[in-house]
């Protein structure tokens, strides 16, 4: 545990999830699976964001008991960087919106052609 | 020389040329006939033809262009004579230089077409397709002939640094070795070959084609018109021979010399015509684009280096 701290683990997981997400997005033919791929991708990015703001031994930037337990007197010194955390919140909201829109599209597409194969939706090309 | 004397000499000269043209034509016919084992026409035949033609009672016309076609033709013949220095007497203002001071070789080259054009238009109004057929053939062959000729003319102009026919003749005086024939052999050779086409005897006479269905502009004309055209033809034959004589064969210092030289030049084309059968147009065009054109190009190229 000396060399692999929480920040590195989450960074690694974040990248891994991003790669998995890309793999899903680029290889799966089913639209729903592609959307799932995007969700994984987004999650990976979010984990990445949080882990980049992580500072070893510090707590979440929420002023509650946990802050006191770190033993620092200065609040700003006892918490991790708050900005990435804020960003993640926003990113999650946006990801939610995008996913919702995608799913709405998936529904409409399915209604139109009774299929979810992405290959089938190439009316517009060249 | 005052203008009246000039006019008198010119008219006299024209009469000589016209009658020499008739006589020369008859002679050539005669030679041709004898070679074919026939007796041939009498020497006076061209004059008989002329008088017969201009005294026919019926004269028809298809319209104004038809009517003035022969006028164009004869004007072309006479004009060529007027712009040509005939006999070299040592002065550009001599008695037989006609009105050659008004222009030069380029004028002759282009005025040459004046009569052809008028005749072609006149015959065209007659409406007979054979006339038009003859003209298309004639124009096509004319173009092919003119290319080597023009190159040779250019070569001679380069050689003497002038377009003036008078000066070209002057430069060739002083012995046979001063003739362009020897001083500029390529140009001379090109002219001698291309001349066959210009004079229009077999093998280059499909334009008139006297042995087949008679075609060409002459089919359209009879009577007085034909008389005009025969006069023009006689004049043109002499004038073309004189042109080549002036350019290649040293010109003439007397009428006798002119008559002899023009006869020989003209005879050359008749002679070839006796030997070779008639070409189709594509054959004659390609023929001129081979050796004569090559000679013409050579004649010019030698002056480029």
């Amino acid at each position: 545990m000396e060399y692999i701290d929480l920040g590195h683990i989450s960074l690694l997981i974040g990248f891994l999830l991003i790669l998995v997400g890309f793999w899903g997005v680029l290889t799966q033919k089913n639209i729903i699976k592609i959307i799932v791929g995007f969700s994984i991708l987004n999650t990976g990015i979010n984990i990445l964001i949080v882990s980049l703001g992580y500072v070893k031994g510090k707590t979440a930037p929420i002023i509650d008991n946990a802050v006191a337990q770190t033993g620092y007197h200065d609040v700003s010194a006892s918490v991790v960087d708050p900005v990435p955390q804020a960003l993640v919140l926003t990113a999650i909201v946006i990801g939610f919106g995008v996913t919702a829109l995608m799913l709405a599209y998936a529904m409409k597409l399915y209604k139109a052609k009774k299929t979810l194969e992405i290959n089938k939706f190439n009316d517009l090309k060249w | 020389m005052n203008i009246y004397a000039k006019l008198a000499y010119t008219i006299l000269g024209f009469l000589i040329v016209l009658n020499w043209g008739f006589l020369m034509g008859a002679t050539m016919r005669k030679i041709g006939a004898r070679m074919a084992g026939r007796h041939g026409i009498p020497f006076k035949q061209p004059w008989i033809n002329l008088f017969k033609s201009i005294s026919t009672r019926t004269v028809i016309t298809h319209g104004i262009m038809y009517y003035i076609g022969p006028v164009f033709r004869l004007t072309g013949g006479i004009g060529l004579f007027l712009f040509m220095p005939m006999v070299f007497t040592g002065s550009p203002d001599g008695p037989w230089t006609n009105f050659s001071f008004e222009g030069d070789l380029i004028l002759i080259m282009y005025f040459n077409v004046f009569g052809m054009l008028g005749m072609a238009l006149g015959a065209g109004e007659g409406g007979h397709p054979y006339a038009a057929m003859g003209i298309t053939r004639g124009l096509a062959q004319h173009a092919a002939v003119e290319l080597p000729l023009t190159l040779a003319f250019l070569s001679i102009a380069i050689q003497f640094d002038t377009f003036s026919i008078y000066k070209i003749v002057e430069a060739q005086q002083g012995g046979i070795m001063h003739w362009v024939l020897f001083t500029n052999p390529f140009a001379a050779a090109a002219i001698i070959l291309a001349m066959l086409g210009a004079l229009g005897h077999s093998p280059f006479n499909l334009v008139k084609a006297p042995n087949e269905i008679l075609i060409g502009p002459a089919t359209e004309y009879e009577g007085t018109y034909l008389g005009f055209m025969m006069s023009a033809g006689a004049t043109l034959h002499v004038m073309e021979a004189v042109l080549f004589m002036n350019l290649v064969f040293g010109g003439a210092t007397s009428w006798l010399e002119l008559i002899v030289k023009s006869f020989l030049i003209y005879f050359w084309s008749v002679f070839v015509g006796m030997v070779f059968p008639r070409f189709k147009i594509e054959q004659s065009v390609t023929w001129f684009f081979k050796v004569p054109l090559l000679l013409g190009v050579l004649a010019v190229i030698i002056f480029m280096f």
Partner: protein
Amino acid sequence: MVTPIFIVATALGAGFAIGVLNKFGKNFTGGLVLAAITFMTFISYQWFSAFQFGDQTPEYVYTAGFMPPLSINLLMGHYEAFVTLLINFAGLLGGIYMFNSLKNRGSNAQVVYLIMLMGLNVMVMTRDIFNLFVFMEVSSIAIAGLILLEKGTRSMGAGFKYILATSIISGFLLIGIIFAYYFTGTLNLDGMIDANLSGIKGGAVAVFMIMIAIILELKPFPANGWGLDLYEGSNAGFSAVVSAASATASFFVLSKVMDIAGPEWYYYISLIGAVTFVGSNLLGIKQENTRRMLGYSSIGQLGLLMLILGFRDILGDQTPYIVFGILISHYMAKAGLFWISGIVKSKGLKGWAVIRKKPFFLFLMGTFIFALIGFPPFPSFFAKWTLVMELVKTGNMAWVVAILFGSMMEAVYLFRWFGYAIKGENEHLEDFKIEIHKIVPVWMVAIGLYVMGYFTAQFTEVGAEINFIPLAFVGLLLALDFLPVFVKNTIAIAGMLAYSYFIYPDLEGDTLRLIFEGIFMLGGILALIAGYAYKGTRAGFYPVAILMYAGLTGIIEAKTTLEFFYGWELMTAGSYFLIIRGKRSMPHGLSYMLFSIGGAYALLAGLGIAHVGQDSFAMDIINNIQYIPYWAYGLLIAGFLTKTAAVGLHIWLPGAHGEAESDVSPMVSAILLKAGVFGVVLALIGMGAENNQYTELAYALGWLGAITAFVGNLMAIFQEDAKRLLAYSSIGQLGYIVFGLAMMTHLGWLAGFSYVINHFLYKAVLFLTIGAVVMRVGTHNMYEMGGLIKRMPLAFVAVMIGIIALSGVPPLSGFTGKWLFYNAVLEKGWYLQGALFSFSGILAFMYLWRLIHTVFLGQLKDNHRNVKEISIWFLIPIYTLIAGLMVYAAKPEWILQPLGNMIAQFFPDGQLIWDGGTAISKYGQWSGSLIGMTIGATFMTVLIWLMLSTRKAHKVKQFDITYSGERPERPETTHVAYNAFEGLYKAMWVATIPLVETFWDRVTNILHDTAGFTRRLYSGNGQAYMLHIVFFILITYLVIIGG
């Protein structure tokens, strides 16, 4: 001053209000949306005018009461104000246009539309990069939603692909942002610039991620299939808004974010821009679907803007001007075209012929297309000019080539489309309906383009009022287009007369320009007189004819290279419209336009090189070109030769002149071609005239001229169409002129100029006469004519004089040129070329005879037995011109002496000596009037003699002649025009093989095949598009970082 935060507040407020107030009905909420956008536009305008006309300084808006980096800040600067103004104005017009579409989709759609605009506004103003990301996402989601305004699976597919692609892109952006934050500790753009992000170890990757995402938002080629689908699949009104507002915003974002990337990125941005510009326009030529084609064009234009942006350090102060010109033209024109495409509702290009049922739509479409290609007086013209000048000046020739090539491709498909619209069959097509709210925005942008053009011109030399007077006259004629021909013709002639009078004092003493101005103006007036023969209104003719003359006089009066180019392009535009008026002119109009544009670009490049190292744009800079002068003169001459139709560049001419209307052919042949000659003359003077150091160039030009003469004349012989015959003849004649000028001697120029004047006179006579005959008999085919001398003696005489003059037979004026030519050739030593020239002249006899014989001589056709003499309105100009020919023939010294004096300014050596009426050269002499008198006297003598001896000539009528006793099976085979000169053809067919046409066909095919092959990349599969994006990123990464 309303603070810019109110742009956001208004949008949000109105959005919420709509949610509450939608019980008042959708019309009410729609009105509310428009009111909100109007207010947003007003705020932007207020700021913009404060910056533009006042001395407002940029202002930051801080949110939440903190300073950055703790809070988000917005910046309202000059550019931000302008860009938000553009966005909001496009939003407003789009909102009006889509009023019903939005309404039918309900108030939610109206809210989403507002939110999209708000997102775009914030994208422009924000200085916080995460904020930028958020609002990019907001507008992306809004756009993806609004694509569904158009019903059907096509738009659904497009929307889904769009959201997939933008999600991938935003993923990269987000990763980039977080790394950027990690390295700099701030999200503020200014903070990142201060922290020198790209200089930090590892920061380069963060920069890469951000930059590539922003670039991908601009739909770079080839990772842009989703963008094309968006343009094609969504509502036309919405495509317009995306093209105008969204693309503009993304472009501005790029320019903003570029600052953190630093100058090492600029090159790559330009490179990606150039690839996009060339690639999309190349693929555009294969498009048959209008909307998709416009999409390609939009993406291409964005590529061009990227290219320019990458050069901003090099272009310096000029960057805003150039970007403004290109951006505003694209913004307005493309929106206008998308909007029209929504009204016309034709998917395929060919269906656009229907637009002619509402002619003013054709006018709008033309305005937009000419603005996109960069014709004057539109802003893009001035911007492209400045861009090329600056790029050439800084030695970036390869970029100029890319820009011009891409523009050329764009012109190919846009003008092909325009050609279908002008000339396609439209009887079977159903007319389209116009809704007033849809047409208003189109008119607004069309007027806007003209206003902006005028405004842009004020920053250049063309800004002077004089350059707009002819255009105003064109506008007047356009407004009066409903009047009958008689009135408009009189106005046009009066206008040209007045203008000639007005301009004469400026040109007095400059013989060179006077000659050409005389040909353009007097020739134009004479050709216009023939217009009285037309009936009805002749819609659209007069504005374009005057446009051409405006351009022609423009190049004469030009004091600067820009004015010259301005006039040149006006002339091209006008003549294009004139040419395409002919019945079967569509393909010829297109090839004319393409060759003209190609030529214009060569000209542009040449003038650009000429400007290198010079302080001014004055015309005389081409007299002293300092940088790669061989190239400069070569390009200039090549450009001019497209107009003179030198061999290789001539294939547009026969069709264009042959199919044009009867009085247009002389305008475009006798008159217009001289513009090219004028250009060649200027270039040759520039090359030093007598002290020409570019002998190889002149030598090549000489051969080119001689070969052109030969090819033109030879091809003319084998034409069966009278007007095409004359057209080929023009090619040949122009070859003579080029040949003469290329000799660069006094005599050569004298010969060339004598041909300029002669060709003007006799070609105008011939084209006018033949055109008038064609109007009477209704066919161009010579074998369908014959014997017309009986019906039209005056026309016959005119043609006869014309052909005698053309052929160079003495005593008419053509001989002047021949005589001068031989002397010049001998002096110069160009014997072989001279012989080719001479041979061409002999070939001319054949087509001239064919022309006059087959039309006027031979047998009169049954159906022409009652045709009338050609119109008096044609006879007047014809005989006026013939009078000119006669004067020239009788007194050549009247014309040649002043010409000689003019040429002596440039070539003092080797002048002719004049002895009264006799011209004496080194080699010979010639006396025009004496020859004329001699021949005339002989002719009259012979004629009188003939008349005396044939007093009783019997007039034979046509049917007195038997006709071989048989009625031929195929009557045309008995006509001499049918397969004429068969013998010559058999001998010389090799020389008639259309090598040049084959060459250009090959070029076209290669382009089309490349485009056809490459565009298969856009398989229509959304996943493939994402793959393209990933590949694009990988490749760019390898190039930029890995390389």
